[in-house]
């Protein structure tokens, strides 16, 4: 899996053909063939692709992702400055999303067909339909500019996080809520819920002990998916709110054709995602004895 990720990340180099020309921006005037070849040699692009890949991979394993063209310092250092900001943003959003989505989803399932169910459906549909960048802009316009309640952008205290977190989580709250609801509804229709009721247990016990735990198992998988969406979402959110994190950095690297930095960012984000999915798989096996024991 990780190997596949690194190949794709490395492959970014070659998507448009000759990376040398991409970096130099076509065939620049004032450079002779020889100049270009020299540059190519300097960058090591004249070696066989597989050698380049292995070389890059070898350094990457040791934490060396090369040097950024733009920042003129090591990519590792550039990223080290930005990564904590992104993790803070994504982590808070993930937790917030779960705290809000799980109770609402359960409520909607238990009160199926009532006002609460329909209310949550409307919220979910809107949450999934409003593009996050527009939501971000609207929040800035109304909450920050018009009423001046929170800062427009930048980092600092907790007040700087409020708008970015709302922007980042709106989609995942909506999706998780619907997922929890449908998972819960499915579990409530299972035979073992009937068995539990036939034992004369209190409704709250049936819900908590027999329904909720089973319903949340598939939701754990969601956390993995969510993390991917949240990391991707940081690109837009960080750009809008000028939040100095990985997302913004990546966008700038892409726009500046800073290929080594792009590679480093892509690899890092994908690796985080893969790691989170490994953790999710592990959590799955803890929660579900069928997986644990097979």
């Amino acid at each position, binding site marked *: *899996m990780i190997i*596949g*990720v690194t190949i*794709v990340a490395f492959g*970014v180099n070659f*998507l*448009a053909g000759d990376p040398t020309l*991409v970096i130099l921006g076509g065939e620049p005037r004032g450079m002779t063939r020889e100049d270009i070849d020299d540059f190519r040699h300097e960058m090591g692009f004249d070696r066989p692709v597989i050698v380049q890949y292995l070389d890059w991979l070898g350094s990457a394993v040791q934490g060396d992702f090369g040097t950024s063209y733009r920042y003129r310092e090591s990519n590792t250092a550039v990223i080290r400055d930005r990564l904590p900001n992104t993790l803070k943003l994504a982590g808070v959003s993930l937790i917030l999303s779960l705290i809000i989505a799980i109770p609402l989803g359960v409520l909607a399932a238990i009160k199926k067909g009532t006002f609460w169910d329909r209310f949550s459906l409307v919220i979910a*549909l*809107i949450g*999934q*339909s*409003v*593009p996050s*960048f*527009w939501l971000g*802009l*609207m929040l*800035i*316009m109304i909450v920050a*500019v018009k009423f001046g309640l929170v800062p427009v952008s930048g980092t600092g205290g907790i007040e700087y996080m409020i708008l970015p977190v709302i922007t980042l989580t709106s989609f995942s709250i909506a*999706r998780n809520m*619907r*997922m929890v609801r*449908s998972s819960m509804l499915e579990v409530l229709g299972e035979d073992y819920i009937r068995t539990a009721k036939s034992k004369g247990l209190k409704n709250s016990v049936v819900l908590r002990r027999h329904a909720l735990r089973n319903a949340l198992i598939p939701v754990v998988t969601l956390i993995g998916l969510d993390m*991917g*969406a949240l*990391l*991707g*979402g940081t*690109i*837009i959110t960080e*750009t*809008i709110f000028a939040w100095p994190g990985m997302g913004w950095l*990546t*966008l700038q690297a*892409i*726009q500046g*054709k800073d290929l080594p930095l*792009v590679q480093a*960012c*892509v690899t890092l*984000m*994908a690796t985080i*995602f*893969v790691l989170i*999915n490994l953790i999710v798989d592990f959590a799955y096996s803890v929660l579900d004895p069928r997986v644990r024991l097979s």
Partner: protein
Amino acid sequence: MNKRKKKHKKHDWLRDLRENKAALVSVIVLGIIVFFAVFAPLLTTQDPNYTNLRVRLLPPVPFEGSNPEHLLGTDSVGRDVASRLIYGARISLMVGFIAVVISGLIGVALGLITGYFGGWVDDVIMRLADIQLAFPFILLMLAVLAVVGPGLWNVILVLGVTGWVAYSRIVRGCVMSLREKEFVEAARAIGASNQRIIIKHLIPNIIGPVVVIASFSVSRTIIAEASLSFLGLGVDVETATWGKMLSEGRLYISDAWWLTTLPGICLALTVLCINVFGDWLRDVVDPKSVER
């Protein structure tokens, strides 16, 4: 003999639609949007790219300082917002539909192959799907577009090619369970070829879920296209798109609210209607077979 030909009554979709008010409204709104997009040149009086610096930043009509020639106001270089919105609908819908058709075809084909035949092909393709899923979607597209350069068809192709995973996973799952069904075994027992089994027995049974995923994909693709345009990596500079209007309007967020509000409303409304319609479709098709 004639009695035999009496056609069986098909599922009454229209009745179902009439019973679900939200879905009905969204279908009507979508119809209007499509109408505007298709007949854009006939419905607009102004060229969406005509700049007129004398009328820059006019607000929409009911507000002070507006000009009835520009119903929804003008932007920072005096272009007519209404016309740009209508032409923007064209881009959004076109990108949405074409990209979804491309990814749908790729995804369904791969899903059928992996699900029906299994084996090492299945392993390889599913591993590819895993790898693609391991990448934050938008990051991947950004990286690709940065290199191949912006442009309408590049955007469509990138969105189309990257969207196959959702289809192939669902189709593969459906096919794997269908393959074990006894009616497929019965078809093999009467000597039907693989080709016949796939066309006659498998495809009709996966159409439902595929249409549902497609409807959600359209909305997701429209958002993705707008996001790309917003980040400056989408459709080329000349064309009016909702995403780019938002990105341009962003600079005037404190002076000209309509430049960010109106394209956003169009975008959100379109996506909302498609999602409501997709939700309804999923309930009608089979609530259990598809998950978002």
